[in-house]
């Protein structure tokens, strides 16, 4: 239950703090850490919760934006980065970067308190 709650909280808080463009893009690292301390679960579970929460959020946002944009920009960026012009690969990379960092942040937090 705490696991599911963690995922949802991570996604919600990451989105909420992301609205403030003046804050750094990595602000969710701090909030993930706090969530993991407040809701202690096992390290592996915590990593997955953080990764899923941020990863799914980023994937969903990117996917929605890209669809509404008819892949105009993603196709260009996927040539610059270079991902062979594939917007799918670009969304995957976006999600992966968010997931990896989100997971690590939550993992770090999980070591602060033992799960009850």
């Amino acid at each position: 239950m705490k696991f599911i709650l963690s995922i949802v909280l991570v996604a919600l808080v990451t989105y909420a703090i992301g609205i403030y463009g003046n804050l750094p893009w990595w602000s969710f690292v701090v909030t993930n850490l706090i969530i993991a301390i407040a809701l202690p679960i096992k390290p592996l579970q915590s990593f997955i919760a953080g990764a899923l929460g941020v990863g799914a959020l980023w994937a969903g946002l990117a996917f929605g934006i890209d669809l509404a944009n008819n892949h105009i920009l993603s196709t260009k960026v996927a040539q610059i980065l270079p991902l062979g012009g594939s917007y799918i690969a670009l969304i995957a990379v976006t999600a992966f970067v968010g997931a990896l960092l989100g997971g690590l942040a939550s993992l770090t937090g999980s070591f602060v308190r033992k799960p009850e």
Partner: protein
Amino acid sequence: MRIVPFLVSATLTAGLVFTLNIQLKLGSTKAPRLGYFLSPQHGFWKNAEKVNSNFDASILANDLKGDVDVYMDDRLVPHIYADNDEDAYYVQGYLHAKYRLWQMDFQTRVAAGRLSEVAGADKLSIDRFFRRLGMVYGAEQTEAYINEKNPVMKATVDAYTAGVNAYLKQLAPEDVPFEYKLMNFEPESWTPKKTYLFLMFMSYDLTGKAASADLQLTNTRDYLGYDLFDQLYTNQQDSLDPIIPIGTKFAKPSIVPVKPLSSDTVYLKKMPIVDIAKLVETPEAPDPNNGSNNWAVGGTMTKSGRPILASDPHLGLNLPSLWYEVQITTPTHSTYGASFPGSPAVIIGFNDSLAWGVTNAGRDVLDYYELKFKDTTQNEYWFNGAWKSVTKRVEVIKVKDSADVIENIAMSHYGPVMFDAYYQNPQSNGRNLAVKWTAHNASTGVETFYQLNRAKNIDDYSKAIQLWKCPGQNFVVATKTGAIAIKQQGDFVARWDRQGDFIMPGTDSAYDWQGIIPFEENPMILNPARGFVSSANQKSTDASYPYYLGTASSFPLYRGISVNQQLIGRTQLTAQDMQALQTSNYNVFAQHARPALMKFVEMNKLSTEAQRIVGMMTQWNLYNDPSEKGITIFKLIWDSVENAVWGDELAGSLIPLTEPESFVLLEQMIRDSNFRVADDIRTKDKIESLKDQVRLGIEKATLKCLALEKENKLSWEAFKATRVLHLTKTPALSRLNLPIGGGEHIINATRENNGPSWRMVVHLTDEIEAYGLYPGGQSGNPGSPFYDTFIDYWTAGKYYRLLFLPKEKLKQHERTKWHIQFKKAVA
């Protein structure tokens, strides 16, 4: 707390944040900050616009005097309706920023020598070039002059600036344009100085060719000696069809420039050349093909009995485009056309009464003077038999991730000392060179356009362009009342023959500029008997004009011939005919050059393959159409023959020398078949004739043609591969390999990365019938569907009908899509 796993995990997390937050290397460039760039709420995803965006908006603005309505049409062209002029320019500034912010910032950074500040030490040599050329100095002169002497222009530029900054103020950090995120820098406030810097950049783009050409010509003269130089780089153009028809009488000149007595020994002599091999990156010299066509046909030649004006400036083809379409309507005037993001007003366009267009005059307004410094402090230089002091101008160049670089620029009475002990390039050849350039002088160029936007008749047009100083332009005009005119206007130096073609001695006032030609004496023609006026960068006059115009290499010959050849004697012309002419691919150069060349071809001495290739060339219909192969073959053969003829003379210099213009060989072929430069001076035992060189050239070109044929790249479009390049040159943001014809010498002057940057045709009927487009789109955002909207149409030679209507009509028009309301904020 489990300390060890915590520390390990925390370190990993912090390390990853750090890594994703810096610019890693990506090939030869730097990648964006990956975490930031990919974050859907911060990075590039925020720039991916909805394809069906609604551009309606209501904007509260403190600085407005009244309310302003902007209607956007289906091509995202804003039609601005304001109660007063300043509000209109405020909104123009706001919209330029909304759609083109990054490009405005970037282009003025280049002009100001501030590229290293955002792109790093790699760009330092480019920044130093522009600083030492006096770009910032010139912009400062103009700013000071306008602030002090011209309250109307000051108010105009201030209102524009306030509009740009109003947009910036409400711009959230996550919404900054894509390129800021890619290159990792931030927007900064607009200032009037940036507008003047932008206009300095246009002066550089259109007259700055001399900054390298004068050095190259000097080096070439020194390498060849003046006599041979004068043959290869002759100023005589037999086939010239000037802007002012041959035979027109010119008034007695008010200035008679005196050639210095020492010029034959000091100026035109052969000098020893010192080759230096050290290469320094300098900005790409302005494209010598920056040129343009414009013409106006009078009522006697048109079906409607009203004039039609056409204008297409040829510039570098870039995304975002240099141009932004706009209509501005206030109680004082109503105008439509192409504007420069970075400057208020419409630059090329039309109003209720008339239409105007420009082409580059090509006159030389930038000279180098060689200084003799007393010592290494560079504080004094020898002038007229005495030591003269310089002042020092300090410019600080900020460099990203590195220490500031300080330029101490010595300022002579000519202008900034560009090249000295501290700054050299491969062409400056160790000399101390001061630059004298009309662009350094304060200028109210903005006011010319401001007044043209409001001009009602030829008198107004004349008053407006009288203010124009640099870059010299051919201003064409046509009015609803039936007048047509063209005038070459700018500050032009009253020169003696060959003055300023080469570096001049800076020790003797006899070489100074002896005056600026008065406005009245600049070439002009009004309602000529032949029924039309035209210009295509050719020399403005024949040799009877009392002033020296400059080196022939500044004046392409053949587009002008082509325009006049296709206009003369025509009647019943329509706007569609003018579009067809503007996009004409007819090759008038080849029309003359192919038969001239064929006189020297001995078919029986050619290889079988070469015979076939030459056959394909002779079968060609003389149109540079995209699928034609004959033009590719013709070009390769011609270039190869030129190389065979001139290559030996120019070989052996370490410093890059200028190649003779194509007309030189062609006119030589037409004039005299027995010309001594044809001989390859490297073969001592025999004397090659032009026939020998032509055969050699054809055989070499044949090899290239066969290779291209194999790759299926012999068609003109594949060979030329026209591209519209993003300003950062990033291929993914550019449009490559466009299937378009045209090229050098062609009215449709579309080359690899240079061509008609705005095509406009205006029929001056009661309700103006206007067409136009530029190879770009109204939005500068690569993530917008309006980013490159017009390119395919432009490539196909098609036009959009331009909507130029009063507010009530435009509001109702079926092509009007969105409404942006600017409301004055109530205090």
